């Protein structure tokens, strides 16, 4: 295939017939441009859906409790359900294999004071894994660790905005703050992509909170990260199983949604997945239709071109060109035009997408539309194949040209 002389012949022929080549490339360039834009917009929609939940881990699963709304086993309606350490331990041990991250969470609301500055903040008492579940990003210092939990240390990790409120531009790491009357050491400052509210909170060890506020083993909710190796369906099934188990364990009616619920990201993921699949299916259909139209277009123009070049091919054959070399030349020319035109369309499309960027996020729910390298590679293969298909019929015609007829003095 790589014959420098053949390429030279083709470049010469394309170069000497620029308008014709541009015309034949246009349809394919347009098809690929359209395809790129559609695909980019679809992926932008997908990105939006994903990012709607993405300040938390994609595999997050929350076990939450409230009050019963149905009587069960002689127990009344309206009973408040309380999760305890034993429940947390039960879930994490029972389903160890299906769990990647695990953390309990206790909600409190306390006033936090540093020197003369004080304000009320939401306090979350958690386990170290909570960092990954909540996608907490450490700006300075460190997150809570197992030693903090074991020693019930009075340490605190504060949000970026908490630090800003209490310390301004001054350093906060290593300083002590007063939390509801007790002195806590600041060991870290974090940020979170979930927005301002997520940065106006503080984290303390769950054990410390239990010891200091009530001296009990209560927890507010259980946060899990299911094993990412689970398929979406398996993860959904896992969530249902945990839900059933916990209801049984806590004597809750199996259908009592408000007493205990498991919020599973897998379900949202599945929904987005189905939506995106449908979207890509539609786009694939439109895109490939356009591409087929492009291929037929280029093939038609090539046939016309072959007619125009009948004499040239006749001359070449008289001078010793074999039918094979004529076919090779035409097909190669077609592949070259298709690929170049396609890449032009692809580049233009990518450029437009990157120019759009996030500007459509607010109104049209399109976030960071783009095409992945996989798509680009796929498109390359498709383009070369398209060129082959588009070139083959005209090439066969060119090879059938009889020199006598082509060269008949006119």
């Amino acid at each position, binding site marked *: 295939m790589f014959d420098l002389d053949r390429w030279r012949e083709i470049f010469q022929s394309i170069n000497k017939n620029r308008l014709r080549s541009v015309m034949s490339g246009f349809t394919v360039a347009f098809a690929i441009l359209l395809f790129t834009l559609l695909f980019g917009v679809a992926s932008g929609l997908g990105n939006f859906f994903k990012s709607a939940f993405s300040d938390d881990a994609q595999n997050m699963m929350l076990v939450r409790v409230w009050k019963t709304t149905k009587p069960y086993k002689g127990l009344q309606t309206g009973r408040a359900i309380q999760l305890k350490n034993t429940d947390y331990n039960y879930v994490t041990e029972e389903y160890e294999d299906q769990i990647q991250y695990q953390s309990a969470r206790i909600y409190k609301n306390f006033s936090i004071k540093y020197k003369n500055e004080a304000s009320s903040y939401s306090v979350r008492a958690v386990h170290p894994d909570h960092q990954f579940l909540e996608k907490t990003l450490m700006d300075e210092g460190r997150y809570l660790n197992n030693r903090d939990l074991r020693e019930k240390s009075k340490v605190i990790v504060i949000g970026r905005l908490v630090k800003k409120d209490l310390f301004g531009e001054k350093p906060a790491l290593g300083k002590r703050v007063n939390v509801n009357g007790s002195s806590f050491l600041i060991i870290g400052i974090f940020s979170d992509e979930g927005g301002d509210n997520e940065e106006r909170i503080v984290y303390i060890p769950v054990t410390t909170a239990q010891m200091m506020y009530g001296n009990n083993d209560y927890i507010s909710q259980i946060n899990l990260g299911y094993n990412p190796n689970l398929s979406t369906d398996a993860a959904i099934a896992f969530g249902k199983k945990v839900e059933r188990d916990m209801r049984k364990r806590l004597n809750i009616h199996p259908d009592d949604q408000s007493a205990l619920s498991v919020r599973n990201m897998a379900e949202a993921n599945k929904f987005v997945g189905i939506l995106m699949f449908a979207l890509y299916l539609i786009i694939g259909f439109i895109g490939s239709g356009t591409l087929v139209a492009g291929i037929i277009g280029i093939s038609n123009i090539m046939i016309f071109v072959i007619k125009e070049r009948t004499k040239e091919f006749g001359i070449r054959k008289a001078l010793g060109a074999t039918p094979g070399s004529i076919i090779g030349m035409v097909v190669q020319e077609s592949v070259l035009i298709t690929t170049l035109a396609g890449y032009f369309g692809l580049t233009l499309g990518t450029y437009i997408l990157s120019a759009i960027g996030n500007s459509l996020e607010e109104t049209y729910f399109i976030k960071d539309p783009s095409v992945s390298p996989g798509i680009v590679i796929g498109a390359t293969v498709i383009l070369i194949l398209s060129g082959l298909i588009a070139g083959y019929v005209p090439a066969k015609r060119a090879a059938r040209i009889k020199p006598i007829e082509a060269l008949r*003095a*006119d």
Partner: protein
Amino acid sequence: MIRIEKLHKSYPIGKDSLHVLKGIDLHIKEGEFVSIMGSSGSGKSTLLNIVGLLDIHDEGEYYLNGQLIKDLNEKKAAILRNKFLGFVFQSFNLISYKTALENVALPLYYKGMNRKERLKVALDYLDKVGLKDWASHLPNELSGGQKQRVAIARALVTNPKVVLADEPTGALDTTTTDSVMDLLKDINDEGMTVFVITHEEEVAEQTKRIVRLRDGVIISDTLTKAAKAQ
């Protein structure tokens, strides 16, 4: 060099067929300068096409350079054309977007010679037809006579066994006709077999042997004055 025995060729026209060549016997030896004369419809172009391996005959035998031409597929015919034959056409048939030099070098491309070498050889042949200075010109920048010289250089560049010229002067005026014929004569003097098809008496007179064709048969085969004078 060329030996033809009892050659027949018909073309189908609807249900009937037109019998164009009706038993041609012709023997052309190496180094001959032969012209085929005949009015249109006499079958001279068909004969040239068969001799030039651009068409196949129905009956009879054709030996080119001692090789029996039979059951040729297109690829074999292309290779033989490239190796043994050089063509000169009435309408020149240069490729319009290639320079004179590139046109001359084209047969060498199909022979598989590398670019550097074939451009060098092509330039030698352009020099031979007196157009070295016009090497980088496109065909439409050349006069008719110059175009035909380029075509002759192209026919010669592979060093073929036979040069086949189909009405080589048909599109030229008297002066350029003479200069082109002089060129063909020079080539013949160097030992090349030249086979010309023409309907012009003056052109035929400048060759060494005239074969006259009428209605698909040879009616005369004579040496010219030029040949007798030698």
